[in-house]
């Protein structure tokens, strides 16, 4: 419990202090990285010291359960919290090594970490909304980082669309409270079964729209390319590698955890929307000429796989969705960080990322695709869809490789190691996960077990 409290308090306090300091000084940036690393370490302590079931929970302020806000760290939430903070920390380290441009960057990034950590570990619906909004407010500020007119325009679009998304979420929260009379997620899961089916479906649709917007799924994707290409690589990496995880987490936690009957009802629709996302993202990514635009459309395609896995459902489907989200977050963080750097090593790292996006061994993406194939193997149409999607991603990723890395270097600027360090380390991690996937698979299956109630 102490470690869990530290994980909540540390980024809060550190973020508030760092926001008022000048983040352009190296020391402040590294303090921010240290705060994130401390949070990750205390989450790791919670995960390792948890009892057999893997769940640590306490009620804030020593209130009786049902009155106070419950914080519940189960394997599913811990996995997402650690994943999002690791990708966030990687992007922040990258930016600090390159030189931070604006003074609030490290502080706001740490506050984003506070929001992410809270929303993945809370068991209270309204508390989830508050942390959700906190994380997003930090993301809004980050999205205008750089202050070019393009970044501000992209930030405005990102903010306006996502604010409306969160208010749709809030409408669903209000409806849940109306229907069940509680905000505790476990109690909601129990009472939702007796609720009026019409109301439950409306609530589920509200949650789906809110998280679909966050994730950038096909019909809600319109904001995504402008934002991901308009912001700096580090910010695009943060938005796609750690903030977008909220969408996948929300769909799994609310769909599979709270509204399992409605999820089953909508399974076919989810698969169709996911398939549309895969094809749309893939085809548009091929038509793009720059790496960041290609990655933005690729992000739309990749979340389609997650949605297809959720639609298939069951322990296998949820595990595939979790594995795929983890690997996709790592891929996207690494690839967005490489968009503005060149060189033979960077080219090699880009190839690892491209192979991982397409699902070719030995990169980690292969494991994600393998899990997906395991989940869909008895449906020929879906198998064809996955193969087509993989071919499309192979095509668009190597097309960009040809444009960007298969040409003679244009400038003879002295090669600096700073911008390359983080992408190279992440590339090694992706390769490592691909070669030794057992830990990730084991953790994902335990996390999926939490969702399917085993």
């Amino acid at each position, binding site marked *: 419990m102490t470690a869990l409290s530290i994980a909540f308090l540390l980024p809060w306090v550190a973020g508030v202090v760092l926001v008022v300091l000048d983040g352009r000084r190296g020391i402040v940036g590294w303090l921010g990285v240290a705060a994130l690393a401390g949070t990750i370490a205390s989450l790791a302590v919670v995960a390792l010291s948890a009892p057999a079931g893997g769940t640590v929970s306490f009620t804030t302020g020593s209130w009786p359960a049902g009155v106070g806000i419950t914080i519940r760290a189960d394997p599913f939430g811990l996995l997402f919290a650690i994943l999002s903070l690791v990708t966030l920390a990687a992007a922040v380290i990258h930016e600090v090594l390159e030189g931070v441009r604006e003074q609030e960057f490290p502080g706001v990034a740490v506050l984003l970490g506070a929001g992410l950590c809270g929303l993945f570990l809370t068991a209270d619906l*309204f508390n989830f909304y*508050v942390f959700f*909004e906190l994380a997003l*407010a930090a993301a*809004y*500020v980050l999205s*205008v980082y750089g*202050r070019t*007119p*393009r970044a*501000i*325009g992209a*930030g*405005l679009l990102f*903010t*306006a669309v996502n*604010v*409306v998304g969160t*208010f749709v979420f*809030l*409408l669903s*929260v*209000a*409806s849940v*409270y*109306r229907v069940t*009379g509680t*905000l505790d997620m476990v109690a909601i899961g129990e009472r939702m079964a007796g609720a009026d089916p019409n109301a439950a479906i409306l609530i589920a649709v509200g949650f789906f729209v809110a998280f679909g917007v966050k994730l950038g799924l096909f019909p809600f994707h319109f904001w995504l390319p*402008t934002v991901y290409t308009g912001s700096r690589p580090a910010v695009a990496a943060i938005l796609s590698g750690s903030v977008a995880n909220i969408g996948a987490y929300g769909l799994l936690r609310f769909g599979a955890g709270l509204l399992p009957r409605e999820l089953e009802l909508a399974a076919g629709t989810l698969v169709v929307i996911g398939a549309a996302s895969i094809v749309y993202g893939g085809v548009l990514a091929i038509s793009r*000429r*720059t790496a960041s635009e290609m990655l933005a459309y690729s992000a739309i395609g990749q979340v389609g796989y997650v949605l297809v896995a959720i639609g298939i459902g069951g322990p296998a489907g949820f595990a595939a969705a979790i594995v795929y989200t983890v690997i996709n977050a790592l891929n996207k963080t690494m690839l967005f960080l490489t968009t503005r750097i060149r060189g033979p090593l960077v080219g090699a790292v880009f190839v690892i990322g491209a192979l991982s996006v397409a699902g070719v061994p030995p990169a980690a993406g292969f494991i994600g695709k393998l899990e997906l194939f395991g989940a869909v193997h008895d449906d020929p149409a879906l198998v064809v869809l996955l193969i087509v999607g993989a071919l499309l991603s192979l095509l668009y990723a190597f097309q960009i490789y040809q*444009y960007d890395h298969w*040409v003679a270097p244009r400038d003879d600027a002295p090669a600096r190691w700073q911008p390359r360090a983080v992408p190279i380390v992440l590339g090694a991690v992706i390769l490592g996960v691909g070669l030794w996937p057992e830990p990730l698979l084991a953790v994902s299956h335990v996390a999926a077990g939490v969702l399917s109630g085993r």
Partner: protein
Amino acid sequence: MNLLFALTAACLFGAGAHLLLSRDLFRVVVGVAIVSQAAVLTLIASAIVRGVAPIHPLPDEPVSDPLSQAMALTAIVIGMAVTALLLVLVLRLTETLRSRTIDDLAEEEVERDERLERRHAWSQESEEASAR
């Protein structure tokens, strides 16, 4: 009472959505603010019971639900903060672009795409030339 709340919230949401779709960025911000009010109203409506104030020690008569009030207050604060953030963004953009409609933003985007296209065509030509 429920119907009244539902209708009001629906009207607010509709008005907000209408403003969100307009070209003027300032109207978009006002639209966001109105949509946030619709959500707040729904929160209040989610637990309407007639009763006395729930102050300890609780009386025997029914008390009104304090939780939805607390949620509504939190949502109002968050909505205000986000609206302020949006207004700052619009202000920044107005200062840099000297306009506050979406069309100018779109124009900027199109120009950038064209520049990119030209540069790409040029680099390919020069590559082919050097290959020859």
